[in-house]
């Protein structure tokens, strides 16, 4: 398992919601990229499973939505901002700061 780098990774929230996203999308986040770096020998890098203890499932869902949104639009010009529900934006801000996205 350690040698074969799978195309998808799993992100897990503290309330155990699991989100499976493509590796390239997840690595937009600097933090996740460093976690998953196979050379770092973190357990995340070996298993392809990141436990994000600071995030609830709702926030992580939005984060994953952004990761995919970014992946989808990275070659487009003049992309509108992703819609974020106002009640979530402070938590999401903290998450974004932590994830370095």
């Amino acid at each position, binding site marked *: 398992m350690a040698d074969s780098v799978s195309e998808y990774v799993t992100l897990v929230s503290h309330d155990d919601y699991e989100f499976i996203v493509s590796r390239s999308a997840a690595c937009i986040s600097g933090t996740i990229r460093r976690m998953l770096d196979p050379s770092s020998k973190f357990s995340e890098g070996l298993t392809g499973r990141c436990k994000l203890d600071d995030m609830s499932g709702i926030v992580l869902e939005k984060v994953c939505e952004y990761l995919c949104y970014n992946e989808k639009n990275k070659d487009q*010009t003049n992309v509108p*901002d992703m819609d974020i529900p106002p009640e979530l934006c402070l938590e999401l*801000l903290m998450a974004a700061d932590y994830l370095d*996205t």
Partner: protein
Amino acid sequence: MYGSPLREIHLIDTSYRANRRQARGIRGPRSALTDFLASNNISAQQIQDDYANRQAEAARQANEAQRQSVDPGAEQRRSPSEANSPEDLIKKRKRQQAITRIKNSKEFAKRKARLSGDHDPEYDDESLANQIHEERQRPQPGQLANCEICEKRFTVTPYSKTGPGGGLLCPDCSKKHKADEKKPPAKKRATGNIGRRQNQTNLLDGLTPHGTQSLLETCIKKVADYIHDVEDFGDLPPSLLLRLGQILSRRRAVTPKTLDLFIRPQYRSIDLFDCAKLDTDDFHKILASMPHLTRVNLRFTTPFKDEIIQYMVDRDMQIKDLHLDGANLVTDACWRHLFQKLGHRLQSLKLWNLNSAFDDETAQVMCKQCPNLQRLKLKFLHKTGNGTLEAISSLPFLEHLSLHYLKETEIDPKHLWSIMSAVGSRLKTLSLEEFELVDDKLLQLIHEQCHSLTKLRLSKNFTFTDAGLAALFVNWPNQALTYVDMNSLRDVDMTNPNGPEQPIGLASSAFVALMEHSGAKLQHLNIASCRHIPYQAFEQVFAEGKVYPELKYLDLSFSPAVDDYIAMCIFRCCPALQRLVVFACFKIRDIHIPRGLAVIGTVGATVKIDGVAQTETI
């Protein structure tokens, strides 16, 4: 009973002629009105008949008008039937007379002259005269007319529309007629094009039109949008707090209410870039609720008064960094008091825009009482002059110096020389703006004294020579600079736009020498308005094989030499470039911009980004 005759009375019009009596048997009782009408030779029956006749006539005319519009010869064919009634004969004669009159009139001649230019064969004399006649017959506003389409009677107004046949239309038909007219097709905007204004706004905000913004930035903006609904930021890290402060300041949304979000008793710094909406009490609140403050950075602080400074002094606050912009109500006495009491702690002092206080004497007190100052910035302090410069040279630990005097202030360059001699060797950053008449001697002193600079700004000067600037950079023991701002070093003789023979300001040799010296580490370069830099110098500096690996920001505005080719060379030589500013470089017409680079200030140029062409709409 009475209904019938009464209704008929309404139909009496001027054309009514009661010359026909009809003998008919009347049955039933007669009303008083009928008696009266009969005695006055008015017959209800006749009125009714006349009405019917008129209706029939109107219908016939409408039919004929329709036929006439299809077949122009109808007029002639109609004439015999028209001649049948004596009434029509009179009408026709009158019409003929009117038309003859029209033909002799000035208006007719004018119109004919106008039309003959168009060579329209359909408009012969006769039809033109008819047309004018019809126009004259048209009812005036306020009168009644029959609608050309629906035959309804309506009141003519100045706004009544002319129908397809030349008659007037009733309001309802005008509306329908208008709707039938083809609307001009809506302007189409080709996709991929974006308004110039929006485009430039985004670029100035540092947004390249590529991909999405970072989630962090999106969230910060969203929080700023909903700032009035936020009750508490929670434990937001200071870096984010600073960024939020910047965005809210820019939107002018720092109010006493939002201020509460930024007041954290445990924090040691506060940065608010727009305090214009805060009151004196709010400044009190900041100082009172954040007792551990060491850094106070407040801009547009008009209500910042003596009592606030006094409060700082009374509490003996541990302030090390004091940055105040526009604290104009603080008096000289109070400034001196502050420096005397808290001056020994101050490590950095930045003051902007003071015009009623802060004179040379205060500056001398400052320099005497704040010996630990490492960073000093004084910009637009109206009352400072040579005395302040003299005092600055006595600061023993000064490392960062930034001065921007008012243009009108008369400066003795000697004081700048003595500053260089006294503190030059320690200086890490130096910014001298708008010292217009300071000459090459200063450059020579910088060359000799300053050996630890990383940032150098010498702008808005028309005395430095190209040779003097080149001499500064050639064999300068100073390390490579990371930040250079040399904007507006040029000759300002309007009568000689190309400058004198021996170039003034940053020109060929100085530019080449600068890039030779600092190119390897340079991150930020501003040479806007250095208009004596020739094309060859750009070609030489950005030649093939030269690389400026760190350069992120380059401002070339108002450099007339820069064209598409130079821009391409710049893209090739500066792989890390993020912003290129080219206001008024009109030779940039068609460029292909690499990914991640914002080119600011192009006018009407065709800009191509990774195969997506954007023609700017102006």
